[in-house]
Protein backbone atom coordinates (compact mmCIF):
# COMPACT_ATOMS: atom_id res chain seq x y z
CA UNK A 1 0.00 0.00 0.00
CA UNK A 2 2.78 2.39 0.97
CA UNK A 3 4.76 1.56 -2.11
CA UNK A 4 1.74 2.10 -4.33
CA UNK A 5 1.02 5.47 -2.78
CA UNK A 6 4.62 6.57 -3.11
CA UNK A 7 4.68 5.55 -6.75
CA UNK A 8 1.52 7.54 -7.40
CA UNK A 9 2.87 10.56 -5.57
CA UNK A 10 6.20 10.28 -7.33
CA UNK A 11 4.42 10.59 -10.64
CA UNK A 12 2.51 13.58 -9.32
CA UNK A 13 5.70 15.07 -8.02
CA UNK A 14 7.60 14.60 -11.23
CA UNK A 15 4.76 15.98 -13.32
CA UNK A 16 4.62 18.99 -11.08
CA UNK A 17 8.37 19.35 -11.30
CA UNK A 18 8.39 19.28 -15.07
CA UNK A 19 5.76 21.97 -15.35
CA UNK A 20 7.43 24.01 -12.65
CA UNK A 21 10.91 23.87 -14.10
CA UNK A 22 10.07 24.91 -17.58
CA UNK A 23 7.55 27.66 -17.46
CA UNK A 24 4.38 25.78 -16.59
CA UNK A 25 2.03 26.64 -13.80
CA UNK A 26 4.39 26.12 -10.91
CA UNK A 27 7.07 28.59 -10.06
CA UNK A 28 6.76 31.05 -12.86
CA UNK A 29 4.86 32.27 -15.82
CA UNK A 30 1.46 31.75 -14.23
CA UNK A 31 -1.02 34.31 -13.07
CA UNK A 32 1.05 35.01 -10.00
CA UNK A 33 4.53 35.37 -11.39
CA UNK A 34 7.02 35.54 -8.53
CA UNK A 35 8.65 38.80 -7.61
CA UNK A 36 11.65 39.44 -9.76
CA UNK A 37 9.96 37.92 -12.77
CA UNK A 38 10.28 40.52 -15.45
CA UNK A 39 11.89 40.54 -18.83
CA UNK A 40 13.88 43.70 -18.75
CA UNK A 41 17.36 42.21 -18.83
CA UNK A 42 19.47 43.49 -21.68
CA UNK A 43 21.17 40.14 -22.26
CA UNK A 44 22.14 39.65 -25.85
CA UNK A 45 19.93 42.45 -27.08
CA UNK A 46 17.40 40.20 -28.78
CA UNK A 47 13.98 41.72 -28.90
CA UNK A 48 15.24 45.28 -28.83
CA UNK A 49 17.23 45.30 -32.05
CA UNK A 50 14.89 45.44 -35.07
CA UNK A 51 17.63 44.07 -37.33
CA UNK A 52 18.26 40.96 -35.25
CA UNK A 53 16.92 37.54 -36.19
CA UNK A 54 13.56 36.81 -34.54
CA UNK A 55 14.03 34.62 -31.52
CA UNK A 56 12.79 31.04 -31.58
CA UNK A 57 9.34 30.84 -29.94
CA UNK A 58 10.65 28.42 -27.32
CA UNK A 59 13.26 30.96 -26.29
CA UNK A 60 10.98 33.94 -26.60
CA UNK A 61 8.43 32.26 -24.29
CA UNK A 62 10.83 32.32 -21.36
CA UNK A 63 10.53 34.88 -18.61
CA UNK A 64 13.35 36.25 -16.54
CA UNK A 65 13.00 34.98 -12.98
CA UNK A 66 15.79 35.99 -10.64
CA UNK A 67 14.44 33.91 -7.78
CA UNK A 68 14.46 30.77 -9.90
CA UNK A 69 17.98 31.73 -10.98
CA UNK A 70 18.96 32.20 -7.33
CA UNK A 71 17.72 28.72 -6.45
CA UNK A 72 19.59 27.10 -9.34
CA UNK A 73 22.77 29.08 -8.73
CA UNK A 74 22.67 28.27 -5.03
CA UNK A 75 22.28 24.54 -5.62
CA UNK A 76 25.02 24.63 -8.25
CA UNK A 77 27.56 26.76 -6.44
CA UNK A 78 27.04 25.81 -2.80
CA UNK A 79 24.92 22.64 -2.97
CA UNK A 80 22.46 24.30 -0.60
CA UNK A 81 19.07 25.89 -1.13
CA UNK A 82 18.86 29.64 -0.69
CA UNK A 83 17.59 30.60 2.76
CA UNK A 84 14.22 32.26 3.25
CA UNK A 85 16.11 35.50 3.94
CA UNK A 86 18.02 35.25 0.66
CA UNK A 87 14.83 34.48 -1.26
CA UNK A 88 13.20 37.51 0.35
CA UNK A 89 16.10 39.81 -0.46
CA UNK A 90 15.73 39.06 -4.18
CA UNK A 91 11.94 38.78 -4.27
CA UNK A 92 11.38 42.06 -2.47
CA UNK A 93 14.22 44.05 -4.05
CA UNK A 94 13.51 47.15 -6.06
CA UNK A 95 16.19 45.95 -8.45
CA UNK A 96 15.96 42.14 -8.39
CA UNK A 97 18.80 41.77 -10.89
CA UNK A 98 21.20 43.68 -8.65
CA UNK A 99 19.96 41.73 -5.62
CA UNK A 100 20.48 38.42 -7.45
CA UNK A 101 23.97 39.41 -8.53
CA UNK A 102 24.86 40.43 -4.98
CA UNK A 103 23.77 37.00 -3.73
CA UNK A 104 25.64 35.33 -6.60
CA UNK A 105 28.85 37.16 -5.72
CA UNK A 106 28.56 36.08 -2.10
CA UNK A 107 28.13 32.47 -3.17
CA UNK A 108 31.15 32.67 -5.47
CA UNK A 109 33.22 33.84 -2.49
CA UNK A 110 31.89 31.22 -0.07
CA UNK A 111 33.84 28.23 1.25
CA UNK A 112 31.10 25.98 -0.10
CA UNK A 113 32.02 27.14 -3.60
CA UNK A 114 35.59 25.93 -3.12
CA UNK A 115 34.36 22.53 -2.05
CA UNK A 116 31.91 22.39 -4.94
CA UNK A 117 34.64 23.19 -7.46
CA UNK A 118 36.77 20.35 -6.13
CA UNK A 119 33.83 18.00 -6.68
CA UNK A 120 33.03 19.45 -10.09
CA UNK A 121 36.56 18.76 -11.29
CA UNK A 122 36.66 15.36 -9.63
CA UNK A 123 33.66 14.36 -11.72
CA UNK A 124 34.93 16.01 -14.91
CA UNK A 125 38.40 14.50 -14.54
CA UNK A 126 37.04 11.14 -13.36
CA UNK A 127 39.32 10.94 -10.36
CA UNK A 128 39.22 11.71 -6.65
CA UNK A 129 39.76 10.32 -3.17
CA UNK A 130 42.41 7.69 -2.39
CA UNK A 131 45.27 10.07 -3.19
CA UNK A 132 43.73 11.13 -6.47
CA UNK A 133 42.63 14.66 -5.64
CA UNK A 134 45.58 16.83 -6.62
CA UNK A 135 44.51 17.54 -10.20
CA UNK A 136 40.87 18.37 -9.35
CA UNK A 137 42.12 20.48 -6.44
CA UNK A 138 44.49 22.42 -8.71
CA UNK A 139 41.65 23.19 -11.13
CA UNK A 140 39.43 24.27 -8.23
CA UNK A 141 42.17 26.39 -6.70
CA UNK A 142 42.81 28.21 -9.98
CA UNK A 143 39.12 29.03 -10.23
CA UNK A 144 38.64 30.03 -6.61
CA UNK A 145 41.73 32.26 -6.64
CA UNK A 146 40.86 33.84 -10.03
CA UNK A 147 44.16 32.66 -11.48
CA UNK A 148 44.78 32.02 -15.19
CA UNK A 149 43.21 28.65 -15.83
CA UNK A 150 45.96 27.77 -18.30
CA UNK A 151 48.22 27.26 -15.28
CA UNK A 152 46.54 23.88 -15.15
CA UNK A 153 49.04 22.92 -17.88
CA UNK A 154 51.89 25.30 -17.28
CA UNK A 155 52.42 25.50 -13.51
CA UNK A 156 55.95 24.48 -12.65
CA UNK A 157 55.43 24.72 -8.89
CA UNK A 158 52.44 24.16 -6.66
CA UNK A 159 50.88 21.83 -9.23
CA UNK A 160 49.80 19.18 -6.72
CA UNK A 161 47.98 21.22 -4.06
CA UNK A 162 45.84 19.81 -1.27
CA UNK A 163 42.45 20.95 -0.01
CA UNK A 164 41.29 20.83 3.61
CA UNK A 165 37.53 20.35 3.58
CA UNK A 166 37.24 21.34 7.24
CA UNK A 167 38.96 24.71 6.92
CA UNK A 168 38.21 25.14 3.20
CA UNK A 169 41.79 26.05 2.48
CA UNK A 170 44.16 25.16 -0.31
CA UNK A 171 47.79 24.36 0.44
CA UNK A 172 50.38 24.56 -2.30
CA UNK A 173 52.49 21.48 -2.94
CA UNK A 174 54.73 20.41 -5.78
CA UNK A 175 54.12 17.21 -7.68
CA UNK A 176 56.71 14.60 -6.82
CA UNK A 177 56.62 12.27 -9.77
CA UNK A 178 60.32 12.67 -10.44
CA UNK A 179 59.65 14.05 -13.92
CA UNK A 180 62.49 16.25 -15.23
CA UNK A 181 60.09 19.12 -15.96
CA UNK A 182 56.82 20.20 -14.37
CA UNK A 183 53.70 21.11 -16.32
CA UNK A 184 50.59 21.36 -14.17
CA UNK A 185 48.41 18.27 -14.28
CA UNK A 186 50.48 16.81 -17.11
CA UNK A 187 53.14 15.79 -14.60
CA UNK A 188 50.79 14.90 -11.76
CA UNK A 189 51.55 11.35 -10.62
CA UNK A 190 47.94 10.84 -9.54
CA UNK A 191 46.73 11.54 -13.07
CA UNK A 192 49.36 9.24 -14.50
CA UNK A 193 48.36 6.49 -12.04
CA UNK A 194 44.63 6.84 -12.63
CA UNK A 195 45.00 6.78 -16.40
CA UNK A 196 47.76 4.24 -16.72
CA UNK A 197 47.25 1.91 -19.68
CA UNK A 198 48.83 0.33 -22.71
CA UNK A 199 51.29 2.61 -24.51
CA UNK A 200 50.10 5.60 -22.43
CA UNK A 201 47.14 5.98 -24.74
CA UNK A 202 44.64 6.46 -21.92
CA UNK A 203 46.61 9.46 -20.62
CA UNK A 204 46.46 11.07 -24.06
CA UNK A 205 42.78 10.33 -24.27
CA UNK A 206 42.21 11.94 -20.87
CA UNK A 207 43.77 15.19 -22.09
CA UNK A 208 41.73 15.10 -25.28
CA UNK A 209 38.33 14.28 -23.79
CA UNK A 210 38.46 16.29 -20.57
CA UNK A 211 40.07 19.45 -21.92
CA UNK A 212 39.15 19.41 -25.61
CA UNK A 213 35.63 18.08 -25.25
CA UNK A 214 35.77 15.52 -28.01
CA UNK A 215 36.94 12.02 -28.65
CA UNK A 216 39.56 11.11 -31.20
CA UNK A 217 39.94 11.67 -34.10
CA UNK A 218 41.00 15.15 -33.10
CA UNK A 219 42.39 16.32 -36.43
CA UNK A 220 40.69 16.21 -39.81
CA UNK A 221 42.20 17.05 -43.20
CA UNK A 222 40.39 19.35 -45.58
CA UNK A 223 39.84 16.45 -47.95
CA UNK A 224 39.91 12.73 -47.07
CA UNK A 225 42.22 10.41 -48.99
CA UNK A 226 41.13 6.93 -50.00
CA UNK A 227 43.33 4.15 -48.64
CA UNK A 228 42.38 0.52 -49.24
CA UNK A 229 38.94 1.73 -50.24
CA UNK A 230 38.38 3.57 -46.98
CA UNK A 231 38.53 7.24 -46.06
CA UNK A 232 41.73 8.37 -44.41
CA UNK A 233 40.80 11.69 -42.85
CA UNK A 234 43.82 12.73 -40.77
CA UNK A 235 46.11 15.52 -41.98
CA UNK A 236 49.24 13.55 -40.99
CA UNK A 237 51.23 11.41 -43.41
CA UNK A 238 49.64 7.97 -43.24
CA UNK A 239 53.03 6.30 -42.90
CA UNK A 240 54.17 8.49 -40.00
CA UNK A 241 53.08 5.98 -37.36
CA UNK A 242 54.37 2.52 -36.55
CA UNK A 243 53.32 -0.59 -38.40
CA UNK A 244 54.92 -3.09 -35.99
CA UNK A 245 54.58 -4.76 -33.58
CA UNK A 246 51.09 -3.24 -33.70
CA UNK A 247 50.05 -2.20 -37.15
CA UNK A 248 48.62 1.27 -36.69
CA UNK A 249 48.47 1.51 -40.47
CA UNK A 250 45.95 -1.31 -40.53
CA UNK A 251 42.73 -0.61 -42.41
CA UNK A 252 41.01 -3.96 -42.08
CA UNK A 253 38.46 -3.16 -39.40
CA UNK A 254 38.71 0.61 -39.24
CA UNK A 255 41.37 3.09 -40.36
CA UNK A 256 43.44 3.12 -37.15
CA UNK A 257 45.53 6.01 -38.42
CA UNK A 258 42.59 8.40 -38.37
CA UNK A 259 43.01 8.59 -34.61
CA UNK A 260 46.46 7.16 -33.99
CA UNK A 261 48.37 9.70 -36.07
CA UNK A 262 47.44 12.29 -33.45
CA UNK A 263 47.60 9.92 -30.46
CA UNK A 264 50.96 8.32 -31.30
CA UNK A 265 52.63 11.69 -31.72
CA UNK A 266 51.68 12.51 -28.09
CA UNK A 267 51.78 9.26 -26.15
CA UNK A 268 55.61 8.99 -25.99
CA UNK A 269 55.62 12.14 -23.84
CA UNK A 270 53.70 10.23 -21.14
CA UNK A 271 55.45 6.89 -21.59
CA UNK A 272 57.99 7.23 -18.81
CA UNK A 273 55.39 7.34 -16.05
CA UNK A 274 54.93 3.89 -14.58
CA UNK A 275 51.77 2.26 -13.25
CA UNK A 276 52.17 4.18 -9.97
CA UNK A 277 52.47 7.46 -11.85
CA UNK A 278 56.18 7.85 -11.10
CA UNK A 279 58.63 9.00 -13.76
CA UNK A 280 61.26 6.42 -14.70
CA UNK A 281 64.43 6.75 -16.73
CA UNK A 282 62.98 4.72 -19.57
CA UNK A 283 59.60 4.03 -21.11
CA UNK A 284 57.47 2.29 -18.48
CA UNK A 285 54.32 1.29 -20.26
CA UNK A 286 53.55 -1.89 -22.17
CA UNK A 287 52.71 -2.77 -25.74
CA UNK A 288 49.89 -5.34 -25.80
CA UNK A 289 51.04 -8.06 -28.15
CA UNK A 290 50.41 -11.81 -27.95
CA UNK A 291 51.33 -13.97 -26.20
CA UNK A 292 52.70 -11.44 -23.74
CA UNK A 293 52.87 -7.67 -23.52
CA UNK A 294 56.34 -6.18 -23.98
CA UNK A 295 57.87 -2.90 -22.81
CA UNK A 296 57.01 -0.16 -25.26
CA UNK A 297 59.74 1.40 -27.36
CA UNK A 298 59.57 4.65 -29.29
CA UNK A 299 59.40 2.68 -32.53
CA UNK A 300 56.16 1.06 -31.37
CA UNK A 301 54.47 4.48 -31.66
CA UNK A 302 56.23 6.27 -34.49
CA UNK A 303 58.29 5.69 -37.58
CA UNK A 304 61.98 6.68 -37.31
CA UNK A 305 62.51 10.43 -37.60
CA UNK A 306 59.04 11.34 -36.38
CA UNK A 307 58.82 13.68 -33.38
CA UNK A 308 56.24 14.30 -30.71
CA UNK A 309 53.78 17.06 -31.58
CA UNK A 310 50.63 18.72 -30.26
CA UNK A 311 48.52 18.51 -33.37
CA UNK A 312 50.30 18.46 -36.72
CA UNK A 313 52.87 21.21 -37.13
CA UNK A 314 53.49 21.99 -33.46
CA UNK A 315 56.53 20.05 -32.22
CA UNK A 316 56.73 19.60 -28.45
CA UNK A 317 59.88 18.04 -27.08
CA UNK A 318 58.68 17.46 -23.53
CA UNK A 319 55.69 17.83 -21.24
CA UNK A 320 56.55 21.45 -20.42
CA UNK A 321 56.36 22.33 -24.09
CA UNK A 322 53.18 20.29 -24.41
CA UNK A 323 51.67 22.28 -21.55
CA UNK A 324 52.54 25.55 -23.25
CA UNK A 325 51.06 24.33 -26.53
CA UNK A 326 47.84 23.20 -24.87
CA UNK A 327 47.58 26.49 -23.00
CA UNK A 328 47.93 28.35 -26.29
CA UNK A 329 45.37 26.30 -28.18
CA UNK A 330 42.11 28.25 -28.62
CA UNK A 331 40.16 24.99 -28.49
CA UNK A 332 41.05 24.67 -24.80
CA UNK A 333 39.11 27.83 -23.95
CA UNK A 334 36.18 26.75 -26.09
CA UNK A 335 35.99 23.45 -24.24
CA UNK A 336 36.36 24.91 -20.76
CA UNK A 337 33.68 27.51 -21.43
CA UNK A 338 31.41 24.84 -22.95
CA UNK A 339 31.85 22.73 -19.81
CA UNK A 340 30.92 25.69 -17.61
CA UNK A 341 27.94 26.47 -19.81
CA UNK A 342 26.68 22.91 -19.78
CA UNK A 343 27.05 22.69 -16.04
CA UNK A 344 25.28 25.98 -15.39
CA UNK A 345 22.46 25.15 -17.79
CA UNK A 346 22.19 21.58 -16.42
CA UNK A 347 23.15 19.75 -19.59
CA UNK A 348 24.44 16.23 -19.95
CA UNK A 349 28.12 15.52 -20.60
CA UNK A 350 29.63 17.11 -23.66
CA UNK A 351 31.69 14.03 -24.55
CA UNK A 352 29.76 10.93 -23.49
CA UNK A 353 26.30 12.40 -24.10
CA UNK A 354 27.25 14.62 -27.04
CA UNK A 355 25.78 17.66 -25.32
CA UNK A 356 27.31 20.00 -27.85
CA UNK A 357 26.97 23.77 -27.74
CA UNK A 358 26.94 26.03 -30.82
CA UNK A 359 29.94 28.32 -30.73
CA UNK A 360 27.68 31.31 -31.33
CA UNK A 361 26.04 30.70 -27.95
CA UNK A 362 29.39 30.56 -26.18
CA UNK A 363 31.20 33.27 -28.08
CA UNK A 364 30.90 36.21 -25.64
CA UNK A 365 32.07 34.01 -22.81
CA UNK A 366 34.94 32.53 -24.82
CA UNK A 367 36.07 36.03 -25.75
CA UNK A 368 36.01 36.97 -22.07
CA UNK A 369 37.92 33.82 -21.10
CA UNK A 370 40.52 34.50 -23.79
CA UNK A 371 41.00 38.03 -22.51
CA UNK A 372 41.05 37.29 -18.78
CA UNK A 373 41.91 33.59 -18.47
CA UNK A 374 39.74 33.55 -15.35
CA UNK A 375 37.27 30.68 -15.47
CA UNK A 376 35.41 31.82 -12.35
CA UNK A 377 34.75 35.19 -13.98
CA UNK A 378 33.52 33.33 -17.04
CA UNK A 379 31.22 31.22 -14.90
CA UNK A 380 29.84 34.38 -13.32
CA UNK A 381 29.20 35.91 -16.72
CA UNK A 382 27.27 32.78 -17.70
CA UNK A 383 25.22 32.90 -14.51
CA UNK A 384 24.17 36.50 -15.10
CA UNK A 385 23.43 35.92 -18.79
CA UNK A 386 19.90 36.21 -20.02
CA UNK A 387 19.80 32.51 -20.80
CA UNK A 388 20.69 31.49 -17.26
CA UNK A 389 18.13 33.77 -15.58
CA UNK A 390 15.32 32.90 -18.02
CA UNK A 391 12.96 29.99 -17.44
Amino acid at each position, binding site marked *: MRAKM*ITLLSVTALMAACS*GEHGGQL*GNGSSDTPSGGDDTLGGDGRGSDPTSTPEDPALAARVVDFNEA*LRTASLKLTR*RLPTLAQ*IGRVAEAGDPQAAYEAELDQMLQSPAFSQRMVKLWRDAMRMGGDGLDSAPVLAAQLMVENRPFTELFTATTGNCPTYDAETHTFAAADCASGAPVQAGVLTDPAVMRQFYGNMAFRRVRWVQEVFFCSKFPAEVADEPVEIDGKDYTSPWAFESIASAPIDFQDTESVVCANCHTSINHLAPLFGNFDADGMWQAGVSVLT*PIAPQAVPTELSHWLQPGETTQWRKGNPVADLAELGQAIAG*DPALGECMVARMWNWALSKEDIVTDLATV*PYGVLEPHVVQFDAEGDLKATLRSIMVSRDFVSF
Partner: protein
Amino acid sequence: MNIRIPSFMVLCAALGGVACVGEPPTSLLDKPRKGADETVGDTPDKQGGRPQDTVGGEDTTFDHMPNLGADEARDPLEIAKQREEEGTPEVRARLHSCQKLQIAAIRNLLVDFGVDLEAKAAADQPKTAGQLLAEGTTALGGANYAARMGEDLVWTAAGAARQFDIFVQAAPQIIAAMPTLPQCMKEGATEGPQMFEADGSCNRDAVTCLIGRPATDDHLAICQSLVASASNPDKGKSMAVATLLAAAHSCE
Protein backbone atom coordinates in the same frame (compact mmCIF):
# COMPACT_ATOMS: atom_id res chain seq x y z
CA MET B 1 49.04 46.46 -51.60
CA ASN B 2 52.72 47.09 -52.21
CA ILE B 3 52.55 49.83 -49.63
CA ARG B 4 50.36 48.04 -47.12
CA ILE B 5 52.47 44.93 -46.71
CA PRO B 6 55.71 46.68 -45.70
CA SER B 7 53.74 49.03 -43.45
CA PHE B 8 52.15 46.03 -41.83
CA MET B 9 55.53 44.40 -41.29
CA VAL B 10 57.02 47.58 -39.81
CA LEU B 11 54.11 47.87 -37.47
CA CYS B 12 54.51 44.27 -36.42
CA ALA B 13 58.16 44.82 -35.69
CA ALA B 14 57.40 48.01 -33.79
CA LEU B 15 54.83 46.28 -31.65
CA GLY B 16 57.28 43.57 -30.70
CA GLY B 17 55.50 40.75 -28.95
CA VAL B 18 52.03 42.08 -29.63
CA ALA B 19 50.22 39.89 -32.12
CA CYS B 20 49.32 41.63 -35.35
CA VAL B 21 45.77 41.27 -36.52
CA GLY B 22 45.62 39.82 -39.98
CA GLU B 23 48.93 38.04 -39.76
CA PRO B 24 48.72 34.74 -41.60
CA PRO B 25 48.51 31.78 -39.21
CA THR B 26 51.88 30.19 -38.61
CA SER B 27 50.56 27.11 -36.85
CA LEU B 28 47.39 25.36 -35.84
CA LEU B 29 47.49 27.29 -32.60
CA ASP B 30 46.71 30.43 -34.59
CA LYS B 31 43.68 28.79 -36.15
CA PRO B 32 40.57 30.95 -36.47
CA ARG B 33 37.65 30.61 -34.10
CA LYS B 34 34.73 28.43 -35.01
CA GLY B 35 31.76 29.82 -36.91
CA ALA B 36 28.66 30.66 -34.86
CA ASP B 37 26.83 27.55 -36.07
CA GLU B 38 29.73 25.18 -35.53
CA THR B 39 29.55 23.22 -32.32
CA VAL B 40 31.95 22.71 -29.47
CA GLY B 41 31.93 18.95 -28.91
CA ASP B 42 31.36 15.97 -31.15
CA THR B 43 28.21 15.63 -33.19
CA PRO B 44 26.44 12.25 -33.45
CA ASP B 45 27.64 11.76 -37.02
CA LYS B 46 31.31 11.94 -36.06
CA GLN B 47 33.40 9.19 -37.57
CA GLY B 48 34.09 6.39 -35.12
CA GLY B 49 31.48 7.59 -32.65
CA ARG B 50 29.30 4.48 -32.43
CA PRO B 51 29.97 2.00 -29.60
CA GLN B 52 30.59 -0.79 -32.12
CA ASP B 53 33.28 1.34 -33.75
CA THR B 54 35.57 0.75 -30.80
CA VAL B 55 35.11 -2.99 -30.49
CA GLY B 56 37.35 -5.33 -32.42
CA GLY B 57 37.17 -9.02 -33.23
CA GLU B 58 39.09 -12.14 -32.28
CA ASP B 59 41.71 -11.59 -34.94
CA THR B 60 42.63 -8.06 -34.02
CA THR B 61 44.06 -6.19 -31.07
CA PHE B 62 41.71 -3.37 -31.91
CA ASP B 63 39.41 -3.25 -28.90
CA HIS B 64 38.99 0.01 -27.03
CA MET B 65 36.78 1.12 -24.17
CA PRO B 66 34.16 3.45 -25.61
CA ASN B 67 34.59 5.88 -22.71
CA LEU B 68 37.46 6.85 -20.43
CA GLY B 69 35.75 5.04 -17.59
CA ALA B 70 33.52 2.04 -17.16
CA ASP B 71 30.35 3.98 -17.89
CA GLU B 72 28.13 2.53 -20.55
CA ALA B 73 28.43 3.99 -24.03
CA ARG B 74 25.36 5.54 -25.54
CA ASP B 75 24.48 5.05 -29.18
CA PRO B 76 24.95 8.37 -30.99
CA LEU B 77 21.95 7.65 -33.16
CA GLU B 78 19.77 7.42 -30.07
CA ILE B 79 21.29 10.63 -28.78
CA ALA B 80 20.64 12.29 -32.14
CA LYS B 81 16.99 11.30 -31.88
CA GLN B 82 16.78 12.76 -28.39
CA ARG B 83 18.47 15.97 -29.46
CA GLU B 84 16.09 16.35 -32.39
CA GLU B 85 13.14 16.19 -30.02
CA GLU B 86 14.74 18.84 -27.83
CA GLY B 87 14.88 21.42 -30.62
CA THR B 88 17.49 23.18 -32.69
CA PRO B 89 21.06 23.19 -31.38
CA GLU B 90 20.72 26.81 -30.31
CA VAL B 91 17.40 26.29 -28.54
CA ARG B 92 18.50 23.21 -26.66
CA ALA B 93 21.76 24.89 -25.65
CA ARG B 94 20.07 28.04 -24.36
CA LEU B 95 17.22 26.44 -22.42
CA HIS B 96 17.82 25.03 -18.96
CA SER B 97 17.86 21.24 -18.92
CA CYS B 98 17.71 19.02 -15.84
CA GLN B 99 20.62 17.80 -13.77
CA LYS B 100 19.87 15.79 -10.66
CA LEU B 101 20.75 17.10 -7.23
CA GLN B 102 24.21 16.10 -6.11
CA ILE B 103 24.16 13.59 -3.25
CA ALA B 104 25.93 16.19 -1.12
CA ALA B 105 23.17 18.66 -1.94
CA ILE B 106 20.50 16.22 -0.75
CA ARG B 107 22.48 15.73 2.44
CA ASN B 108 22.86 19.50 2.98
CA LEU B 109 19.19 20.08 2.25
CA LEU B 110 18.13 17.51 4.85
CA VAL B 111 20.51 18.87 7.47
CA ASP B 112 19.38 22.45 6.82
CA PHE B 113 15.79 21.26 7.27
CA GLY B 114 16.58 19.75 10.65
CA VAL B 115 16.78 16.08 9.74
CA ASP B 116 19.01 13.91 11.93
CA LEU B 117 20.99 11.87 9.44
CA GLU B 118 22.56 9.77 12.18
CA ALA B 119 19.23 8.44 13.42
CA LYS B 120 18.72 4.69 13.01
CA ALA B 121 15.38 2.95 12.76
CA ALA B 122 14.41 0.03 14.96
CA ALA B 123 14.74 -3.33 13.25
CA ASP B 124 11.01 -3.64 12.56
CA GLN B 125 10.60 -0.08 11.33
CA PRO B 126 11.19 1.51 7.90
CA LYS B 127 14.66 2.94 7.53
CA THR B 128 15.26 6.57 8.38
CA ALA B 129 16.04 9.23 5.82
CA GLY B 130 19.69 9.12 6.88
CA GLN B 131 19.87 5.37 6.42
CA LEU B 132 18.21 5.55 3.02
CA LEU B 133 20.66 8.24 1.97
CA ALA B 134 23.73 6.45 3.28
CA GLU B 135 22.75 3.16 1.68
CA GLY B 136 21.52 4.71 -1.54
CA THR B 137 24.73 6.03 -3.04
CA THR B 138 24.62 3.71 -6.02
CA ALA B 139 20.95 4.32 -6.76
CA LEU B 140 21.49 8.06 -6.40
CA GLY B 141 24.25 7.94 -9.02
CA GLY B 142 27.30 8.37 -6.79
CA ALA B 143 30.77 8.60 -8.28
CA ASN B 144 32.98 5.56 -8.69
CA TYR B 145 36.41 7.03 -9.27
CA ALA B 146 38.08 3.63 -9.09
CA ALA B 147 36.21 2.88 -12.30
CA ARG B 148 36.99 6.40 -13.58
CA MET B 149 33.36 7.46 -13.34
CA GLY B 150 32.12 10.75 -11.91
CA GLU B 151 28.78 11.25 -10.19
CA ASP B 152 25.84 10.92 -12.59
CA LEU B 153 24.51 14.13 -14.05
CA VAL B 154 20.91 13.06 -14.57
CA TRP B 155 18.48 10.86 -12.72
CA THR B 156 17.77 7.24 -13.23
CA ALA B 157 14.28 6.02 -12.25
CA ALA B 158 15.83 4.27 -9.24
CA GLY B 159 17.57 7.46 -8.14
CA ALA B 160 14.47 9.63 -8.41
CA ALA B 161 12.44 7.05 -6.48
CA ARG B 162 15.12 6.84 -3.80
CA GLN B 163 15.17 10.61 -3.38
CA PHE B 164 11.39 10.62 -2.96
CA ASP B 165 11.56 7.85 -0.35
CA ILE B 166 14.17 9.87 1.55
CA PHE B 167 11.91 12.92 1.54
CA VAL B 168 8.95 10.83 2.73
CA GLN B 169 10.92 9.55 5.70
CA ALA B 170 12.34 13.00 6.44
CA ALA B 171 9.04 14.88 6.26
CA PRO B 172 7.83 14.46 9.89
CA GLN B 173 11.14 15.80 11.23
CA ILE B 174 11.07 18.72 8.81
CA ILE B 175 7.53 19.65 9.87
CA ALA B 176 8.50 19.52 13.53
CA ALA B 177 11.73 21.48 13.08
CA MET B 178 10.47 24.16 10.71
CA PRO B 179 9.96 26.98 13.29
CA THR B 180 13.49 26.55 14.63
CA LEU B 181 15.36 26.39 11.33
CA PRO B 182 17.68 29.31 10.48
CA GLN B 183 17.20 28.20 6.88
CA CYS B 184 13.55 29.18 7.10
CA MET B 185 13.72 32.43 9.05
CA LYS B 186 13.03 35.74 7.38
CA GLU B 187 15.60 38.52 7.51
CA GLY B 188 16.08 39.51 11.16
CA ALA B 189 13.59 36.96 12.49
CA THR B 190 14.39 34.65 15.39
CA GLU B 191 11.69 32.14 14.61
CA GLY B 192 10.57 30.44 11.46
CA PRO B 193 7.03 29.64 10.32
CA GLN B 194 5.00 26.60 11.25
CA MET B 195 4.78 24.30 8.25
CA PHE B 196 1.01 24.09 8.71
CA GLU B 197 -1.34 26.61 10.27
CA ALA B 198 -3.65 25.64 13.12
CA ASP B 199 -6.44 24.94 10.63
CA GLY B 200 -4.16 22.56 8.74
CA SER B 201 -3.53 24.86 5.81
CA CYS B 202 -0.03 25.18 4.33
CA ASN B 203 2.02 28.21 5.32
CA ARG B 204 3.30 30.21 2.35
CA ASP B 205 6.68 31.07 3.86
CA ALA B 206 7.24 27.46 4.85
CA VAL B 207 6.46 26.26 1.33
CA THR B 208 8.75 28.97 -0.05
CA CYS B 209 11.54 27.72 2.18
CA LEU B 210 10.98 24.10 1.12
CA ILE B 211 11.00 24.78 -2.59
CA GLY B 212 13.70 27.46 -2.58
CA ARG B 213 11.70 30.05 -4.50
CA PRO B 214 8.65 32.20 -3.73
CA ALA B 215 5.61 29.96 -3.38
CA THR B 216 2.71 30.72 -5.70
CA ASP B 217 -0.98 30.13 -5.10
CA ASP B 218 -0.61 27.01 -7.22
CA HIS B 219 2.03 25.60 -4.90
CA LEU B 220 -0.24 26.21 -1.93
CA ALA B 221 -3.20 24.64 -3.71
CA ILE B 222 -1.21 21.49 -4.43
CA CYS B 223 -0.03 21.38 -0.84
CA GLN B 224 -3.62 21.72 0.42
CA SER B 225 -4.86 19.10 -2.00
CA LEU B 226 -2.26 16.57 -0.86
CA VAL B 227 -3.10 17.12 2.79
CA ALA B 228 -6.82 16.80 2.14
CA SER B 229 -6.62 13.68 -0.01
CA ALA B 230 -4.70 11.54 2.49
CA SER B 231 -6.28 8.95 4.76
CA ASN B 232 -5.43 11.05 7.82
CA PRO B 233 -4.08 14.59 8.31
CA ASP B 234 -0.65 13.61 9.61
CA LYS B 235 0.04 11.33 6.68
CA GLY B 236 -1.28 14.01 4.36
CA LYS B 237 1.06 16.61 5.80
CA SER B 238 4.06 14.33 5.43
CA MET B 239 3.10 13.49 1.87
CA ALA B 240 2.60 17.15 1.07
CA VAL B 241 6.07 18.06 2.31
CA ALA B 242 7.72 15.11 0.56
CA THR B 243 5.89 15.78 -2.69
CA LEU B 244 6.72 19.48 -2.70
CA LEU B 245 10.38 18.67 -2.07
CA ALA B 246 10.53 15.98 -4.74
CA ALA B 247 8.72 18.11 -7.29
CA ALA B 248 10.75 21.23 -6.64
CA HIS B 249 14.09 19.50 -6.48
CA SER B 250 13.92 16.89 -9.21
CA CYS B 251 16.33 19.24 -11.01
CA GLU B 252 19.05 21.55 -9.75
